[in-house]
C-alpha cells in the first residue's frame, strides 16, 4: 500500500532545508550577471565579470585559495589516516579524544594559532632570547604568508579531527581484521596491509566528508582572514570584502567573485578527482609489485606524529587564549605576562558577555533540537517508507556543505527579506538549522540504520504501532548517538559566523560575531575572552553529551 505520509515529510523537509540553498545560489548567480534591480543594473550583462577581471591580484587570489585549500585538505586527510592507524584497536579512546577538537570553533582556533606560530608569538617568546638570540622578533612572513601555508596548516589542524571521526564511524563497516590477517599470510606487516588494503576502502567510505572538507577549505572566510594571505587575500575573503566595500561599485565584482568561489570549488573537486585517479593507479602498481617495503610503516608513523603535533598545536592555541584572557602587559620576548589580571573578564562582563553567552547558547540549543528533530523525521519517514539505505535525495543534504557560504549569503539575505524575516531572530535560527541539519543527519543516519531490525520487529509482533516503536524502542536505544548529534549540531551553530551576520542583519549578536569583530580590534585580551567562551560552549555540550550517554551504559 502506498503511504503518502512519509514521502510528504521528506518533501517538506527538502523544501524547507535544501531548496533555499539552490535558490540562494541561483539568486547570486543571476545578480553576478547584472540582474540586480537596486543598483539600476537590471539588464543581463557581463559587467560584474569584466570588473572582477579588472581587480588587481585576482589570478594570485585564485591560485593561493586553490593551493591552501587542496594542501590543507590533503594534510588533514593524511594526518587522519596516520592517527587512525596509530591508535587502531583503541578506537574507543580516540573517539573520546577527538570531539573536543571537533567542537573548537574555527575562529577561536585561528586566533589562538596565529598568536602561537608568529615569530613574536608564544613559541617565539618561550625560546627568546636564550635559544634564538632574538631581542626583536625576526621579520618572517608567519602567519598570513603569501603562499597560504599558515592557512593550510590551520585548516589541517581544524579538519583533522572531523576526518578522523568520520573514519572511525566508517571503520566498523570494513573487515579490517580479515584484511590484516590476509596481509599477514602474504607476509606483509600491519602497516603495509593497512595502507594497501584498509586505507583505500576506508577512503571510499569517507569520500563525501573529504569533498565537504575540500569545499569548506576552498571557501572559508573567518580562518582565512586571520591566517591567510593579505595581498591579495584568498578569493572568498576578497569576495566578502568587495560585498562590504565602501564603494558600491565594488558590489558587482563582489557578486561575480562570490559566484567564482563556487566555480573554484568545482575546479578544486576536479583537481582532487584527478588526484584520486592518479593515487589509485599508483596504489595498484605498488600492490602489483608486491614489494615488502618498509616505506608504508615509516609514512604512516610520520603521519601519526604529524597528527600528534597538530593536536598539540590545537591544545596550545586554546591555552594561549586562556592565558591572554588574564594577561596584563605581555610583550615580546616575555614567555609569560607581566602579571595576571581579571580586567579582561571584568570589562567583558561590563559589555554583557554573560548575557551574550546565554543568548548564543539558547540559539545553539534551539538550532540543535530543531535540526535533530528534523533528522529524526527524515530518517523515520525513510524507515516507514520501507527504505533501508539513504536513497538518492539524501545526497542533496550535502549541498550546503559543498557550496561556499559566501556564494549563498546574498541570495539567502534576499530570500529572508522577501519573507519579511530580515534581521529577525527567526531568520538566524532558520539559517542555523539549515547548516546544522546536515551534520545532525550525518551523525544519526549510521547508528539509525545499523540498529538491529529484529528488536523493532519484536516490538511490532508485540503489537506496538510505528509511533510507539519510535518513542519507546528506537529513540531510547539511540540515546548516545542522539546526544552526540545534538552536541555536534550545537557546535556547528555556535561556530557559524557569516550566516549569523548576514541573516541577522547584524542585529543578532552572538559570541562568534563579537569574537570576530574584536579580532580586528586592538585588545587581544578582550578578543581572547570572547573566543575562549565561544570555544567553551560546544566543549561543554560535548562533555554533557558524553556524561549523559555514559549514564545510559551504567
Amino acid at each position, binding site marked *: 500500500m502506498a503511504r503518502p505520509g512519509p514521502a510528504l515529510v521528506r518533501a517538506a523537509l527538502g523544501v524547507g532545508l535544501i531548496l533555499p540553498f539552490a535558490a540562494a545560489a541561483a539568486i547570486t548567480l543571476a545578480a553576478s550577471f547584472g540582474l540586480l534591480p537596486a543598483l539600476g543594473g537590471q539588464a543581463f550583462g557581463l559587467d560584474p565579470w569584466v570588473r572582477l577581471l579588472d581587480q588587481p591580484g585576482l589570478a594570485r587570489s585564485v591560485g593561493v585559495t586553490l593551493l591552501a585549500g587542496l594542501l590543507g585538505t590533503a594534510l588533514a586527510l593524511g594526518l587522519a589516516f596516520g592517527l587512525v592507524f596509530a591508535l587502531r584497536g583503541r578506537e574507543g579512546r580516540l573517539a573520546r579524544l577527538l570531539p573536543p577538537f571537533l567542537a573548537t570553533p574555527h575562529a577561536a582556533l585561528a586566533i589562538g594559532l596565529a598568536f602561537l606560530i608568529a615569530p613574536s608569538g608564544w613559541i617565539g617568546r618561550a625560546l627568546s632570547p636564550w635559544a634564538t638570540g632574538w631581542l626583536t622578533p625576526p621579520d618572517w612572513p608567519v602567519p598570513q604568508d603569501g603562499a597560504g601555508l599558515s592557512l593550510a596548516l590551520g585548516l589541517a589542524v581544524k579538519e583533522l579531527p572531523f576526518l578522523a571521526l568520520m573514519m572511525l564511524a566508517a571503520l566498523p563497516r570494513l573487515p579490517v581484521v580479515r584484511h590484516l590477517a590476509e596481509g599477514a599470510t602474504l607476509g606483509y606487516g600491519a602497516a603495509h596491509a593497512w595502507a594497501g588494503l584498509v586505507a583505500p576502502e576506508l577512503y571510499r567510505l569517507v569520500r563525501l566528508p573529504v569533498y565537504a572538507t575540500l569545499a569548506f577549505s576552498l571557501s572559508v572566510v573567518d580562518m582565512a582572514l586571520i591566517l591567510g594571505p593579505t595581498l591579495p587575500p584568498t578569493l572568498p575573503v576578497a569576495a566578502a570584502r568587495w560585498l562590504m566595500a*565602501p564603494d558600491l561599485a565594488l558590489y558587482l565584482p563582489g557578486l561575480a567573485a562570490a559566484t567564482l568561489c563556487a566555480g573554484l570549488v568545482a575546479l578544486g573537486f576536479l583537481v582532487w578527482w584527478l588526484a584520486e585517479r592518479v593515487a589509485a593507479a599508483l596504489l595498484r602498481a605498488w600492490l602489483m609489485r608486491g614489494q615488502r617495503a618498509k616505506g608504508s610503516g615509516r609514512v604512516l608513523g610520520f603521519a601519526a606524529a604529524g597528527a600528534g603535533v597538530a593536536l598539540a598545536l590545537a591544545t596550545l592555541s586554546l591555552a594561549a587564549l586562556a592565558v591572554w584572557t588574564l594577561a596584563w602587559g605581555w610583550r615580546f620576548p616575555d614567555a609569560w605576562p607581566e602579571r595576571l589580571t581579571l*580586567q579582561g573578564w571584568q570589562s567583558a562582563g561590563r559589555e554583557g558577555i554573560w548575557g551574550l553567552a546565554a543568548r548564543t547558547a539558547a540559539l545553539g540549543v534551539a538550532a540543535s533540537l530543531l535540526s535533530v528533530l528534523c533528522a529524526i523525521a527524515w530518517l523515520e519517514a525513510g524507515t516507514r517508507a520501507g527504505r533501508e539505505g539513504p536513497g538518492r535525495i539524501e545526497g542533496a543534504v550535502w549541498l550546503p556543505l559543498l557550496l561556499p557560504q559566501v556564494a549563498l549569503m546574498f541570495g539567502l539575505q*534576499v530570500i529572508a527579506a522577501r519573507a519579511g524575516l530580515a534581521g529577525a531572530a527567526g531568520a538566524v535560527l532558520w539559517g542555523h538549522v539549515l547548516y546544522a541539519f546536515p551534520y545532525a543527519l550525518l551523525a544519526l543516519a549510521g547508528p539509525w540504520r545499523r540498529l538491529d531490525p529484529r528488536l523493532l520487529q519484536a516490538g511490532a509482533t508485540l503489537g506496538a504501532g510505528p509511533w510507539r516503536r519510535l518513542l519507546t524502542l528506537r529513540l531510547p536505544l539511540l540515546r548516545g548517538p542522539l546526544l552526540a548529534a545534538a552536541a555536534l549540531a550545537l557546535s556547528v551553530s555556535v561556530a557559524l559566523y557569516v550566516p549569523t551576520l548576514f541573516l541577522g542583519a547584524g542585529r543578532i549578536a552572538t559570541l562568534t560575531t563579537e569574537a570576530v569583530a574584536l579580532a580586528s580590534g586592538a585588545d587581544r585580551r578582550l578578543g581572547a575572552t570572547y573566543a575562549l567562551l565561544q570555544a567553551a560552549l560546544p566543549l561543554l555540550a560535548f562533555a554533557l553529551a558524553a556524561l549523559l550517554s555514559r549514564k545510559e551504559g551504567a
Partner: protein
Amino acid sequence: MKAPLLAALGFAIAAMAQATMALAATWDETLDKARGQTVYFNAWGGDERTNSFLTWADQEMQARYGVHVQQVKLSDTGEAVARVLAEKTAGQTKDGSGDLIWINGANFLSMKEKGLLYGPFVADLPNARYLDLTPGSAAATDFTIPTDGYEAPWRLAKFVLTVDSAREPNPPRSMVALAGWAAAHPGRFTHPTAANFMGATFLKQALVELAPDPRALALPPTDASYAAQTAPLWAWYDALRPNLWRKGTAFPENESALQKMLNDGEVDFAMAFDPAAAAAAVEKGLLPPTVRSYGMAGGSLGNMSFVAIPFDAAHREGAMVLANFLLDPATQAHAQDLRVLGAASVLDPAKLSPAEAAPFAALPSSPALPTAAELGATLPEPHPDWMVRLAADWAKRTAP
C-alpha cells in the same frame, strides 16, 4: 524704502519664531513616537571604549527618553552599507534593519548618491543650535562634501603616529623624515592596508604633505590633477615600501592590528585617528607606558565623525533622538573625558552658555596624551574621490 525693509524683517522674525514653535511641536511628536523604540546603531565594534560609551548612552537614553540603544558592532562600516543595499534590492522601503550608522567620507558619499539615506534631518534636532553649520564648516562638511543635513556630527578625529619612545626617542615628524627613518630601520615600520580607512588616511596624510599644490585636493581629481599631485607621493612611496615590515608585501588589516604589532614588538610605530587611543591602551596594559602619540610638524589630517539614518530605518524617531542626545553639551563633555573616550567635542564653544561650557573646563588631563603643540595644526581632508583613487591606485601598485 525703510518701511518695506522693516516689514520684511518683522515678517522674517515672525516666521522664525513660528518655525521655532513648529520645531518644538514636531520635536515633541518625535519624542513621543521614539518612546519605547529600540535604535539599532551600526557602529564599528573594534574599540572597547566606544562600545562602553554607547552602553552608557543606552542607559541615559532609556532613563531620559525611554529609548533603548542597541549597538550593532561592525568590523567594517561597509557591512551596514551592504545590508541597506540588500534591503533595497529586495524591494524593502521600511522596517529596515539599521536605524543609525556611524559613517564617514566615502561611505557617506556613496549612500547619499544611491539614495540610501533619510533626510535632511539635522536642522530638526534641537541641539543642532550648538553647531557651526555655516557652509564649508567642519560640522557641515564631510571630506569636502556638504552634508546637506543628511548626517549629524558626533566626535572629532585627528591623525597621529604612536611610537615606543624606549626604542625611538626622536621619531620623525614628517612623511619625508619617516621614509629616511625606515631606510635606517628596515622592517620596523608599516601602515594598514589602503583598503582600510586608516591605511588610506596614512597615504592621504603623505599626499597632503607632498602634493605640489595642496589646494587642488579640495576639488574632485581629474586625470591631469591626479597625475600631477600624486607623482611626488608615489616616488616617495616606492622608496619607502621596500623598507616596510615584510618588505611591503603584506600589510596589517587596520590600525588595531597595527597596535597589537607594536605591543608584540614586530614594529616600532602604530597610528590612529584618535589622539587618546594609545593613552587608553596604556591604561589597560595593552601598550607599554613608554609609548607617545604625536602629530606631524606641518599639521595632521583631521575630520568629524558623523551619524546618518538609512532611508528604510524602522525606528527613525528613536535614531533622531539619539543623534540629538549625542550633540548634547553634557554628552559631548562626557565623551571628551579621557577616562571615557577622549574624543574632542564637535560643538562650537562660542555657542555654549557658561553653564554648558563649565564641564569641559573641569575635565582631567594626562601626561600620556599629546599636548596641543605635539599634535600640531589640523589639515583639511581632500575630496573623498582622492581617497578612492589613492586606494585603487595603491592596490594596483602593490598587487603581486
